[in-house]
C-alpha cells in the first residue's frame, strides 16, 4: 500500500475525520478566546478598570424614582441592580396579565359571528403586530402622556384618580391593625375552595353528579373575607389624593414611564396572543364541536368542556414564548428611563466601566427568568396535555 493510498483511507474514515474537525475547531475557538482575553485584559488595564464583582459593594450615587424596596443614592450598586430586577419583574408580571386578558378577548372576538366585532378585532391585530414595540412606547410616553396638562390642571377621572404629565395618582390603601387577620381569612377561603374543588371532582368521577364549584368557591371567598373585614372593623382606609394649588398631595403615583411601558407592551403582545388564541380555537377539529352538540350539550358547555380544554393544548407552547418575549421587551424601559434591570445596569456601566460584568449579570438574570418561565409553563402544559392511552 502506497503512502498516498494510506492517506486516502484515513481521509475517508468518517469517525477519524470528525475527531480531526473537532480538534481543529476546538483549537481555533480556544485561540480566539485567548486573543480576546489578552486584548480585554490589556484594554481594561489601560482604562484603569479592575475586573471582578467588587464594584457591587460600592456606593451607587444615583437616585431611582419610586423604588420597590428601601433605596437611596447611598445604597450599593448591588442593591440598585436588585431594585432594577424587581422593576423588571413588576412590569413583566403586570404586562403578562394585561396582555393575556386583552389577547384572549380580541382572539375570541375575531371568531365572533358578529361581522363588525370580528373585523374590529382583526384590525387591532393587524395594526399592533406590525409596529415596533419601541415606537409604541414612545407613542404613549412622548405622544400622549408627556403632553398631558400640568399637575395643577390635572384631568380628574372617576374613583379619585388624577392624570397629569407626572403620571397617574390614585388613592393609596393604608392598612391598619387587623388587616393581617382578614388576609389570613382570605387565604383560608382559597384553600377551602381548593379542597372543595377536589371533593367535587372525586364525587363527579364516582357518581357523575356535577357541583357548581366555581360559583360556590367565589361566593365562599367573598363572603368569608367580607365578614372578616367587617368583624375586624374595616381595617383599611385610603389616602385620597387632593388637588392643591400647584400640585397633588397624597395618594400614590404611577409614573408616566411605567404607564407607557405597560400600555405599549400589553397592547403589542396582546396582538400576538390574539392570533395564538384564534389559531388554537380553530385548531380544534370541527368533529369535536359537532359531537358535543350531538350529545345535547348547550353552547356554553360545548365551549367550556370540549373546545377550550383542547384549544389550550395548542395555545400554551406559543403563549409561553410570547410571555418570554414580553419579559425581554420590558428592557425597552431604558428608552423612557423606567429603572428596570437594563436601565440601572446601563447607568452602572457608564459610571464604573465594568462592561463585561454588567452584561454577564444581565444575561444570567434574563436566562434565569427565561428558564423559570419555561419550566413553569412546561409544568402547566404537562398538566393539560393529552393523556394518551
Amino acid at each position: 500500500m502506497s503512502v498516498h493510498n494510506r492517506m486516502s483511507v484515513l481521509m475517508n474514515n468518517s469517525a477519524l475525520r470528525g475527531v480531526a474537525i473537532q480538534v481543529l475547531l476546538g483549537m481555533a475557538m480556544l485561540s480566539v478566546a485567548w486573543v480576546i482575553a489578552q486584548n480585554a485584559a490589556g484594554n481594561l488595564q489601560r482604562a484603569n478598570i479592575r475586573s471582578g464583582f467588587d464594584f457591587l459593594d460600592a456606593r451607587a450615587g444615583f437616585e431611582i424614582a419610586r423604588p420597590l424596596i428601601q433605596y437611596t443614592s447611598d445604597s450599593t450598586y448591588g442593591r440598585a441592580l436588585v431594585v432594577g430586577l424587581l422593576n423588571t419583574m413588576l412590569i413583566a408580571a403586570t404586562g403578562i396579565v394585561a396582555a393575556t386578558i386583552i389577547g384572549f378577548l380580541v382572539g375570541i372576538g375575531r371568531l365572533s359571528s358578529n361581522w363588525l366585532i370580528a373585523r374590529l378585532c382583526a384590525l387591532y391585530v393587524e395594526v399592533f403586530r406590525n409596529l415596533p414595540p419601541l415606537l409604541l412606547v414612545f407613542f404613549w410616553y412622548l405622544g400622549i402622556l408627556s403632553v398631558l396638562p400640568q399637575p395643577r390642571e390635572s384631568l380628574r377621572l372617576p374613583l379619585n384618580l388624577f392624570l397629569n404629565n407626572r403620571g397617574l395618582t390614585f388613592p393609596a390603601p393604608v392598612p391598619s391593625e387587623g388587616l393581617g387577620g382578614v388576609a389570613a381569612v382570605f387565604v383560608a377561603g382559597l384553600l377551602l375552595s381548593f379542597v372543595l374543588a377536589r371533593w367535587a371532582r372525586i364525587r363527579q368521577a364516582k357518581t357523575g353528579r356535577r357541583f357548581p364549584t366555581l360559583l360556590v368557591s367565589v361566593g365562599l371567598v367573598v363572603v368569608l373575607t367580607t365578614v372578616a373585614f367587617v368583624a375586624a372593623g374595616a381595617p383599611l382606609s385610603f389616602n385620597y389624593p387632593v388637588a392643591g394649588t400647584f400640585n397633588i398631595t397624597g395618594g400614590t403615583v404611577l409614573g408616566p414611564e411605567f404607564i407607557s411601558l405597560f400600555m405599549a407592551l400589553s397592547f403589542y403582545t396582546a396582538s400576538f396572543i390574539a392570533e395564538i388564541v384564534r389559531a388554537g380555537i380553530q385548531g380544534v377539529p370541527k368533529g369535536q364541536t359537532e359531537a358535543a352538540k350531538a350529545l345535547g350539550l348547550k353552547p356554553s358547555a360545548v365551549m367550556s368542556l370540549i373546545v377550550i380544554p383542547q384549544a389550550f393544548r395548542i395555545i400554551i407552547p406559543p403563549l409561553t414564548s410570547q410571555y418570554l418575549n414580553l419579559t425581554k421587551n420590558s428592557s425597552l424601559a431604558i428608552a423612557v428611563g423606567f429603572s428596570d434591570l437594563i436601565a440601572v445596569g446601563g447607568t452602572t456601566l457608564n459610571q464604573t466601566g465594568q462592561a463585561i460584568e454588567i452584561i454577564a449579570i444581565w444575561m444570567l438574570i434574563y436566562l434565569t427568568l427565561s428558564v423559570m418561565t419555561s419550566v413553569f409553563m412546561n409544568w402547566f402544559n404537562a398538566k393539560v396535555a393529552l393523556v394518551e392511552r
Partner: protein
Amino acid sequence: MAETFVRTSMLAPSQMPIAQVGMVSWIRRHLLAGPKDTILTMLACALIFYTVTHLINWLLVQAVWVGSDRTVCATIAQGGLQPDGWSGACWAFVGAKFEQFVFGRYPLEERWRPILVAGLLVFLLAPMLVPSIPRKALNALLLLVPFPVISFFLLYGGLGLPIVETPLWGGLMVTLLLSFVGIAVSFPFGILLALGRQSQLPLVRWGSIAFIEVIRGVPLITVLFMASVMLPLFLPVGWTVDHLLRALIGVSLFGSAYIAEVIRGGLQAVPKRQYEGAESLGLSYWQKMWLIVVPQAIKLVIPGIVNTFIGMFKDTSLVSIIGMFDLLGIVRLNFGDPVWATPVTPMTGLLFAGFVFWLFCFGMSKYSGFVERKLDTGRKG
C-alpha cells in the same frame, strides 16, 4: 272524456323570502343575530363613529399642512398662531423634515447615491419576488455578490466618490440598510447554526446550542450593548469598529439565532427517507444537505422565516438606544428641535414613523401569505 293535465314546462322558482336574501338577510345574520349581537353591534358602531370622526378631525380637518416653523402648529398660549384649545396633526413638521427622515445628515449633493442604491435594489429584488419570472439563480447571484460591493462604494465612497462617514447616515436609509444586511447575513449563518445543532460532532452541536439558546434567552438590547461596549474591549489597541458596523454585528448575531430555530423546524419536518435517499446515492454530507434537505426545509418554513424578518425589521428600531439615528431615532431627535417643538409634534412624527414601519411589515406579511398559498406549504408545514 275528462282531459288529463300534463305539465310540459317547469314552474319558475319563486323568489326567496326577502329576509333570507341580499343585504337585509346578511345584516340580520351577521350583525343582528340576537339581542346580544345587536347590543355588540351598536356598541361597536358607537366606538367606530367616535374614533373615526375624531381621527379624521385630528389628522385631516384640524391638521396644518404648510408652514415654516412651530408657530403654525402652536396655540396662542403656546406662542403660536392657532386659537387656544386647538389640536391637530402638524404635517408641516413632517414635510419640513422629510428629507432628513429619509437620509439623516447625508450630504445634500450626494443624496443621489442612496437613491441609486435603492433603485438598484428594487430593480434586482422585484424579479426575485415574482415567482413567474425565470433566472432566479442568476438574479440571486447578482443580488448577493456585485450588489453589496457596488452599494458599499456608492454609500460610503471611494473609487473617486467623496467619502461620507457613517455617523452622517441616518433615517429610513439606516433602517433599511440594517434590516437588509441583517437579513442577508443572518440567513446563511442561521442555516449553518441549524445544521450545527443537528451535527453528529458533539463540539459543533453543543457550540451551536449554546449560541442559539443564549442569544434567544436575552433581549436584543443586551446583544446590542455587547456589540457596542464589549466588542471594542476585545480588539487590540488602536483598532476601532465603526458604530454602524457594531449595530450590524449585533442585529446579525441576534437574527441568526432566531432564523436557526425556524430552519431547525424545517429540517425536522423533512422526511427521514429524503436523508436516507440522498445517502444511498452516495452524496457527501454537504451535497446531501445543500442539494436535498435544506431546499425542502426552507420551503416548509417560509412563513416562519418571513415572520422572523418582520421581527428583525421592527427590532432595528432599538439601535436608537445605542446612539444610532435610524428612522425612529431621527424622528425622535427632531422633537427636540426648538424650531418645531409643540405639543402636537411628537404625536405627528410618531404617527408618520409608525405608518412607514407598518407599511413595510404589513407588506412583508401579505407577501408571505401570497408565497404560502403559491407553494401551499402552510398547512402541510
